[in-house]
């Protein structure tokens, strides 16, 4: 807390921008996000990376609300994303609905699906709930590859996603579509980030944390525990549905392989590594988990390629390194990278004094 800053109203005390440094940081972040696509205008790889992170950030924010704030573990987030993606693609193909509407339909479908799999949370906690949500994952995997439903889902060969057009402007068709898609994904990610932050700093967020930390006390203190658990499931799967739909439109085709159990585990890894119950943790975790394979492939593997067997590829090393990192974080810093950064900040603030 910097000295010399005095707050004279509760509104100021509860605002996002509490210290002058917040204003500076926010301005820099805005400048960064605005200039990024223009700096990398012709660098498709960097634009792709930004879109990839923005889309997955939306889903991660959702699962962080569910797991980090409300304390309900979900191993079915990949399935929630798949439901959103398929719902929006199918409505776009069969009904020819416009892009924004299909994304919304995808999100709503995913939300309803999430609500159904949130019902077991009334009785189940912890590992047991995780297994119940795992059922969602396998159910969706099974339905998507089922040949009898191939007329709808395209089976294991998948679907071609129609072009996304917004106000008569065919975003994914143009050359440099990555550049234009940036202006869809990043503003949405920012919006959902702020929305999530607003939720968690108000009464809903406190109710969720109360349920996470002590559900019996929460219920006796007037919180309808089941309603708020379901609300967490609804919002988390709504976020996943948005992310799934955007991802489908962005890559242009849809197969069940995108939304396997591995994706669900990746989401859990993102919030664990980034920091449970912190929205910045979602951002840091998403960037970390999605960038790590690229760093492996482009930097580490070439550097060690002469000394190790050829079977050491990015794909084969990724799970090993992932597992190692998750174990490392669980032991050394269970609150994730964000907590680590906070400790560094705290240390530097007091430096050179020990306390």
């Amino acid at each position, binding site marked *: 807390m910097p000295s010399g800053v005095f707050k004279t109203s509760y509104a100021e005390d509860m605002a996002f921008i509490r210290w002058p440094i917040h204003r500076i940081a926010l301005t820099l972040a805005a400048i960064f996000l605005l200039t990024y696509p223009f700096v990398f205008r012709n660098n498709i790889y960097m634009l792709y990376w930004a879109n990839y992170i923005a889309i997955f950030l939306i889903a991660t924010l959702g699962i962080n609300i569910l797991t980090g704030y409300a304390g309900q573990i979900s191993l079915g987030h990949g399935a929630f994303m798949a439901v959103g993606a398929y719902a929006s693609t199918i409505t776009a193909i069969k009904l020819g609905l416009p892009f924004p509407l299909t994304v919304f339909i995808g999100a709503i479908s995913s939300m309803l699906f999430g609500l159904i799999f949130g019902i077991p949370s009334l009785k189940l906690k912890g590992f047991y709930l995780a297994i119940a949500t795992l059922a969602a994952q396998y159910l969706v995997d099974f339905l998507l590859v089922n040949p009898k439903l191939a007329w709808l889902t395209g089976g294991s060969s998948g679907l071609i996603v129609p072009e996304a057009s917004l106000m008569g402007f065919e975003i994914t068709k143009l050359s440099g579509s990555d550049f234009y898609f940036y202006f869809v994904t990043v503003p949405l990610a920012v919006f959902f980030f702020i929305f999530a932050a607003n939720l968690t700093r108000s009464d809903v967020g406190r109710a969720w944390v109360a349920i996470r930390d002590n559900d019996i006390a929460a219920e*006796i203190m007037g919180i309808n525990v089941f309603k708020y658990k379901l609300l967490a499931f609804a919002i988390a799967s709504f976020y996943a549905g948005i992310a799934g739909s955007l991802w489908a439109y962005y890559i242009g085709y849809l197969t069940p392989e995108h939304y396997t159990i591995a994706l669900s585990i990746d989401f859990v890894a993102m919030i664990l590594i980034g920091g449970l119950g912190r929205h910045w943790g979602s951002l840091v975790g998403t960037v970390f988990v999605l960038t790590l394979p690229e760093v492996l492939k482009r930097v580490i593997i070439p550097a060690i390629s002469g000394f190790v067997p050829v079977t050491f590829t990015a794909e084969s090393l990724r799970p090993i390194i992932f597992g190692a990192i998750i174990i490392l974080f669980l032991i050394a810093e269970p609150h994730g990278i964000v907590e680590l950064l906070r400790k560094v900040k705290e240390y530097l603030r007091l430096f050179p004094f020990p306390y």
Partner: protein
Amino acid sequence: MTLLRVNNVTLRFGGVKAVDGASFDMREGEVLAMIGPNGAGKTSLLNCISGFYRPQEGQIFFRDEEITRKKPYSIAMKGIARTFQNVELYRGMSTLDVIMSGRHIHYKCNPVFSGFYFLKGRKEEIKHRKRVEEIIDFLDLQQYRRKIVSTLPYGIQKRVELGRALALEPQLLLLDEPMGGLSFEEKEDMAVYILEINEDLGISVLLIEHDMSFVMDISDRIVVLERGRIIASGTPEEIKNNPAVVQAYVGEADARAEYGG
């Protein structure tokens, strides 16, 4: 006027009768103490009132409205708040947030619209924050406002828990051993808070307590439980001189002996 009427409540766990046909009335505005040896069923009866346990028989009326077997959160909404024997706070929250969470039942903002903070949520937050600050001032918790509750000393945690219950603006406050585990000074503070809550805020208090000297001092009436049955009720003077109570509860003639453990 009768605020709370417990009528012939029986709670069984398998073959064990934790509460056995307990009946008592509580008047509006009084401090009623429930005493009894360990395992007498005091906390079980309190849990029945707050809806955490569902008694197999009997009814509980709050302002002539039956609340037996209602969900705990709907009982809280009717104006019954409580604290717990072993502090049950939300570990990860700050003191301020814990007390704010007690305001939950008074929020009128649709949960989803809290996401659009600047439209409506902020006004609502500020309104409740003002009430919470009054409670923080009342309980002298100013210096702990931003501290995470799990890092606070036990005595302060008890006070934070009392603050959370007060944030519900209850008409009836159930306190399960408010003095348990406190030092003598903290007990004196707690006694002052309880009397102030009763006299200044006009909240009726039903409390369970083992420390006889405090019970005798602060309560208007006392109900004595033994093995799930109510064996006596009356003013502290009457209870002190009731031979059945002395026999059953203290187990010897010396009524002033503090009941330990």
